[in-house]
């Protein structure tokens, strides 16, 4: 499969802050790729470098093989970026905004496609409304529409659902999923880890300008593995000493981190033999949040 986005040893410094310290990533065509990291990890800087909004100090970035500096015209035509900030031009209506954006990309008479995007984003009734009169959620959708006017094969969404209500978030997820199914490569940065878990096939985690984890979402989940078993014992039973070493207590509940489901049976057997009665028992799957916290605290390299 060919490479949609190649990022090679990219460095970027702002005064004393090393925003990117040698980031390398390859994103294949058709991937749904997640870029995660805490605030200030360098996600937006990396996207800015890809979009030509910032210039890297070292390294190179290409979009579908076109260098974003040397061959910027081709690279930018192949890239659609939904910026993080809720920005708009207050002089124009939604349709004017999209027509103008099409023209910037050299596309004339784009109304059929514009109508289709508007319909897909549920904006048809707002087509002739001035941008100033739209709600925050609507403005966010227009930003998505603006990124799509030139039918870019690679779409970057920089925290598209920040501050967006649940309904719109679900709508956006559905829409972006469909774009991905239709063959678009999607790069998503988000603070919502359940969003990345639900959508992204592969994830890179950034910390202080470095990639600290890079794997498929399922591998990442497996790596930090497994499940958590929470057990509450009926009073007055105490946890047998041999189990105490591997459990942590939280408000009367004992929590066991399991490497696999096979550990459950022996654990329960030990409790039974010690004469413990169980009041409550819960098994939870490790989610991306656990992985994220694990990576960020352990600094484990990719």
């Amino acid at each position: 499969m060919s490479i949609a986005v190649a990022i090679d040893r990219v460095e970027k410094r702002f005064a004393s802050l090393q925003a990117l310290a040698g980031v390398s990533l390859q994103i294949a065509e058709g991937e749904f790729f997640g870029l995660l990291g805490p605030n200030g990890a360098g996600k937006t800087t990396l996207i800015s470098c890809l979009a030509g909004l910032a210039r890297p100090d070292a390294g190179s970035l290409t979009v579908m093989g076109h260098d974003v500096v040397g061959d910027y015209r081709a690279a930018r035509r192949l890239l659609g970026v939904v910026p993080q900030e809720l920005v708009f031009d207050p002089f124009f209506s939604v349709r004017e905004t999209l027509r103008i954006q099409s023209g910037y990309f050299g596309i004339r008479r784009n109304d059929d496609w514009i109508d289709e995007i508007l319909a897909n984003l549920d904006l048809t009734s707002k087509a002739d409304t001035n941008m100033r009169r739209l709600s925050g959620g609507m403005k966010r959708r227009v930003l998505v529409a603006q990124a799509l006017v030139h039918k870019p094969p690679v779409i970057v969404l920089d925290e598209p659902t920040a501050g967006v209500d649940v309904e719109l978030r679900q709508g956006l997820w559905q829409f972006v999923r469909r774009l991905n199914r239709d063959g678009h490569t999607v790069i998503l940065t988000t603070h919502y880890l359940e969003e990345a878990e639900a959508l992204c096939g592969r994830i890179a985690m950034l910390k202080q300008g470095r990639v600290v984890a890079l794997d498929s979402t399922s591998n990442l989940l497996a790596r930090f593995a497994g499940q958590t078993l929470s057990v509450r014992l009926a009073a007055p039973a105490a946890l047998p000493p041999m189990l105490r070493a591997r459990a942590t207590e939280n408000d009367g509940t004992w929590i066991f981190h399991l490497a696999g489901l096979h550990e459950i049976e022996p654990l329960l057997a030990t409790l039974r033999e010690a004469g413990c009665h169980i009041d409550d028992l819960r098994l939870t799957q490790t989610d991306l949040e656990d992985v994220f916290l694990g990576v960020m605290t352990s600094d484990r390299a990719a």
Partner: protein
Amino acid sequence: MLGFRTLLYKEVLRFWKVSFQTVAAPVLTAMLYLMIFSHVLEAHVQVHGVPYAAFLIPGLVMMSALQNAFANSSSSLIQSKVTGSVVFVLLPPISYGEFFLAYVVAAMLRGVMVGAGVLLVTSWFALPQMQSPLWVLTFIVLGGGIMGALGTVAGIWADKFDQLAGFQNFLVMPLTMLSGVFYSIHSLPDFWQQISHFNPVFYMIDGFRFGFFGVSDVAPETSLAVVGTSFALVSAATLLLLRSGYKLRS
């Protein structure tokens, strides 16, 4: 070139949608100047053998055109920088040359529109005969271009509206007001006459006025040379600034 044309269209549409403020208001201001000054001075003053009101009109036309050309590119850029919408013109494949042309030509067009408006409403006071429309057109286009480019620089440089206002009030206003709009520099003391020769706006006004009356403080060829050189220098500086990505691409 469609990128350039769209950006130009958007810049023109932007000021046209608020034309009451961007075109009508400066025309009214110029008319008020004319009414007041011509009322006070008409009976007393002739310049280059021309009645004062007629002498004043081309100066007002050019001053309004220059100030509005500057205001157009500078305010458009600072607004889009402050609101963040500048990203919409930075993401597409628009070159810095196209960017420059679009902002400068839009500024020029607003300048010419305001200038034409001032000429229209002041003409019933004392319509000056246009002796050489080519000089008139050349100077207003070049002058608008210089101010449009300067406005582009100011809009890129300023981070806040008050910085831009400083640029406008402490540079553009004095240069245009002290350029011989309201007087012939021959009426000034020697020292101030000399100083005026260092003001490029003086040559814009003087050359423009020559197109109407066929008389001027300095030869129109000299004015054209100064204005043409200024245009080339300011344009080159603006292009270099845009190419560097200063304050636009970090």
